[in-house]
């Protein structure tokens, strides 16, 4: 019971104070019912799914942010200083939607070398 309480307190924390890693090891640890916490990479490092890697050519980029808008995964962010987009390759699945929708064709889908 005390053990359970410890875990539950962690679960009930605000977003910032929550454990980065959840450790469930035994029956006696578990809360009453399945509670999941939001994390980036809930399916692991989805960047590993890529066959092709989108690469932005900032020279040609006109900062229209269509790639940001159309990225299904939300892995494209905007650098406030430069105004250019950045891709989080940890999670980019390499679907190619950004490249297809770039009006200036400045995103290349390059074969991953794994």
């Amino acid at each position, binding site marked *: 019971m005390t053990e359970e309480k410890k875990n*539950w307190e962690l*679960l009930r924390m605000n977003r910032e104070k929550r454990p980065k890693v959840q450790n469930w090891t035994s*029956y006696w640890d578990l809360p009453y*019912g*399945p*509670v999941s916490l939001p994390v980036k990479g809930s399916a692991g490092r989805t960047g590993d799914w890529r066959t092709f890697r989108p690469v932005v050519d900032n020279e040609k980029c006109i900062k229209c942010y269509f790639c940001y808008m159309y990225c299904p995964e939300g892995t494209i962010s905007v650098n406030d200083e430069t105004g250019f987009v950045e891709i989080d390759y940890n999670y980019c699945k390499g679907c190619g939607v950004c490249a297809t929708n770039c009006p200036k064709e400045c995103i290349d889908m390059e074969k991953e070398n794994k």
Partner: protein
Amino acid sequence: MVKPKFMEGPLKGNFASAYAAMDADVDVITAYPITPQTTVVEKLSELVGEEEFTERQHVEYVRMESEHSVGAGLVGASYAGARTFTATAGQGLLYMTEMVHWMTGARLPPVVAIQTRGITGPGWNIWADYGDILSLRDSGIMIQFIASHQEIYDSILQGFNITEHPDVFLPLFPAYGGFVLSHTAKPVKRIPWEEAQKFVRPKTPEWPHVWVDGERPIMSNALIMPQNFYTEFRIKIHEAQMNAIPVIKDTMAEFEKTFGRGYGNGLVVPYKCDDAEVLLLGYGGNALQAEDAVDKAREQGYKAGALRLRTYRPFPKEDLLHYIKKIPYVAVMERALAFGSPTGGAVSTDIMAICQRDPKARNAHIVPFIGGLGGRDVFLDEQIDQIKILYELKEKGEVPDRKYKMWDTFWTGLITGDKKVEVENQEYFGDI
């Protein structure tokens, strides 16, 4: 303070349910009418608008479009941390079944009053028969069989103290015979609001395992892979059932101490068991009537006792064994048929199972009786006859024969040819 319209007097069982839910300070009620539950939702519709209640509490009452939605609505409201109540019966409960499993799986604490009713087929039936609630025997809900009008009120009031107990968090389904209790009226005393609130568990802003908060987002009841603790979460439901046994006892003890009335220890209710030689074990209204049968039989020299099974899930193994070990001739009377099961009855099968695992009860004689299906009356004489059968067994060492015994089970009230059912086609006045 507005004076309550009703505090004491004869009250329909269903109205007792409605008052109890309101006095237990529920937050959300979802409802859909079904015979014989209808008057519960009708009464609640009235009560939620009455000054007595609007003055002191805020109840959200939702008229749903089906029982499935009623169940889903309860789950939704309960996720939000609200205290929830509904009532249903028969086909409605069957339609709600999926959501009942969800309530237990998500470990939510609603109380759902059941006006038991025959399951339809063959033919429609709307009268008392516990087949509906017993079809949810293994769903993880707590099941209580209620035998009187006052007990309906008291059980629902106690309900939330059990379901919302930190060791439990499972829904409770108090069940009482449709029409037998739902539409009949007997004296009921309501507990004044202030006293009730002192007894009922204080509300919490949220449950410990599920909550709604944008700053503390969670996902509830996600997909769990077989290797990932699904088994463990299921066992937790069983654990909660086991935990509920002392909680039910404590709640009943506290209730009895506070309000001066109780129903056994909350699990079983014994009647004249101290010196009994044979035992009539049953549940619901028929078990209460068995107390009359015991009195009558004692006038004729049969030392019988009655034991009413009040809580069926969790199964009160220890309490039942306590009596069965002392009185090893037991008739188990059931008002529900478990087709294809070893005895035809769910309860008698369970009782045989606990006896088998206890060396001192292993030789007890458990005799299954099934009757009163679909609301057919079980007569006092029939129950006295059950006592006589137990005595024959006790004296001769073997279960006697009767015309209505088949597959080692007695089918009380079975029409066997000695009773003629005449139907006059010209002017039929059915005895209904």
